């Protein structure tokens, strides 16, 4: 089981962590919401929770809780620019469908 991250995304995570000044890594997970069932969670991590899995990729710690991992195993995290908007994008092999706005996905 693993999560991977592109070098661009890793650089942005590192920069944002440095800007923030503290935090051990980022948490990637899922929560139930949105119009298609599930949405991604992406936040800074200050404290590890019990059962958290840690993947170290390109010098960045990606932290995933075990429940989420089954939904996002094999996901590749990238950083992209669409016009004036920029941010992180997940390529999740488990997702079967996405809602129109792409906020949420279903398995």
């Amino acid at each position: 089981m693993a999560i991977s991250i592109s070098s661009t995304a890793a650089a942005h995570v590192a920069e944002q962590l440095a800007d923030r000044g503290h935090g051990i890594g980022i948490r990637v997970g899922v929560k139930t919401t949105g119009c298609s069932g599930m949405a991604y969670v992406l936040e800074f991590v200050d404290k590890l929770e019990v059962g958290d899995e840690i993947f170290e990729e390109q010098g960045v710690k990606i932290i995933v809780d075990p429940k989420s991992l089954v939904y996002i195993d094999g996901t590749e995290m990238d950083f992209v620019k669409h016009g004036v908007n920029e941010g992180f994008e997940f390529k999740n092999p488990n997702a079967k469908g996405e809602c129109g706005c792409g906020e949420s996905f279903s398995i």
Partner: protein
Amino acid sequence: MALLQIQEPGGKQAKPLHRRAVGIDLGTTNSLVAASCGTGVETLPDSTGQHLLPSVVHYAKGKPPLVGGEAKALLVDDPLNTIASVKRLLGKSLSELKAKQDYLPFEFDEARADGAPAILTEAGSKDVVQISADILGALVARAEASLKGALEGAVITVPAYFNDAQRQQTKDAAQLAGLNVLRLLNEPTAAAVAYGLDSNDQGNVVVFDLGGGTFDVSLLSLKNGVFEVLATGGDTSLGGDDIDHAIAEWIAAQLQEPAGVAVPSMAKLRQLANAAKHELSDKTQATILINQFSALLEESTLKQLTADMIRRTITSCRRVLRDAGLTVAEIDNIVMVGGSTRMPLVRDAVAEFFGKAPLTDIDPDKVVAIGAGIQADMLIGNKSPDSFLLLDVNPLSLGIETMGELVEKIIPRNTTIPVAKAQEFTTFKDGQTVMSLHVVQGERELVSDCRSLARFELRDIPSMVAGAAKIRVSFQVDADGLLSVSAEELSTGKKAEIQVKPSYGLESSVIEEMLQDSQSHAKIDMEARSIKEAQLEATQLLDAIANALLVDGNLLSPEEADSLAESIKALETTMTTGSSVQIHAATEELNQVSSEFAAKRMDLHIANALRGESIDAMEKSTD
């Protein structure tokens, strides 16, 4: 999929990534760069703590250009290769500058084919864009060292009166320096922004800018956070340099009196004069020392030397007020800009004229750069994390529908925003009390080919004949691209308004498509528009004649009535099928035929009006 940002644990919004943007005051004498540094926007100093970068460039063979204080120090010894006040040369042709050769001791490059001024230096021929770019480059290097990273954008200030050529050359210089220009901002607007005057709802602001080389006075009107320049004035050849020059000449005159004292170069004299002037900002006299000679400059002497210049600044203020149609009492704030406004003599004169103390809290040398920095910070998105779509121009024209389904463009595409524009419209029918306003976006001439943004109505227009009502429609686009449209009936002040976000839901591909459409259909559109206009004119005439026939049809002989009916029919047929030229011709024809009828009606009505009235009664009725 939607793009995600890293959030704070627990779902709190993460602090948005700070993007590096600066405001640059590219001045005639000095330039500055300002950026947001945590607590607020401040000007950035160089490694020695100097905020002001003298706008002076020195070119030496085989060396990179030297910019700032070190270059300024070479002005005296190497005047041919040291260029100061390049801003004065922007947008001008070489022949225009020739008259000032004594003031600008350079050798111009006569060989240039385009007639643009370029200065011959040891390091080759340098044109004004290149020289300006070298100044900008020094500021960029300073900012990038201070902010620890590449700049993403800059707001550069220009005088409000700068014409297109001057603005374009400023932009070209920025591009040459590798800067992404978010916007060119008018200097007076930047100064007002620095004082936070844009957070007021409305008001009139006078910006009094007495810099090193130029004097500008601008009258800004603030409405809903958008500044509009009502009037500008000033003198492009009046500033601290001229005051220095006057003092320098005074010193030279003092030297010449006792024989034997060699008069130093003008540049040296000016340095002495400048130092003496600064000393007089907080003292009443200054001592000037040259070799064994010393001269004492008293405040009263300075007052005499500068009286004419100060009088000229006040005259400009008066003229600007007159141009804008405002009185001194209607001015809410006076903002002082430029190092020369530190002179107590200047401040006093301004306070006396406007009857209130001017704003002087922010360093007058830095105020424009700070305002530009605030604007840059906002435009790059550091101030409002929610709005990531930043438009510095409106991508498509905005307008309203007029009679005949035609589009009247109020804000043409590619206008820099924020912007406010107004136009007057009138009623189309007699007694019309409601006006329906349809706000549209696009480049095409017919409403059906444009994008509909919003509709609203202005009610309770007083009943008047067609064309008598005056309805002022104002369009205003703020920095976020939010459009508000208001319509006001000027005699009653009755008002209606609406807000829309014109960019909402518009992909750049759609904008592109709309633009291409308008280009490929330009000809068809033009024809369609002229036909519609001709049809409108015809309809108005037909309506008027139909009304007249209803009331006074009996005035016509049977032959006249027949001929009139024929022309009406002819116009009605041509209207639906003819070209605009044919419709115009038929309308003209009907006009001719009906003129006899119109004359008869007028005679009758005048006769009716006068019948049985005594002169007294007539006089009373006109009272």
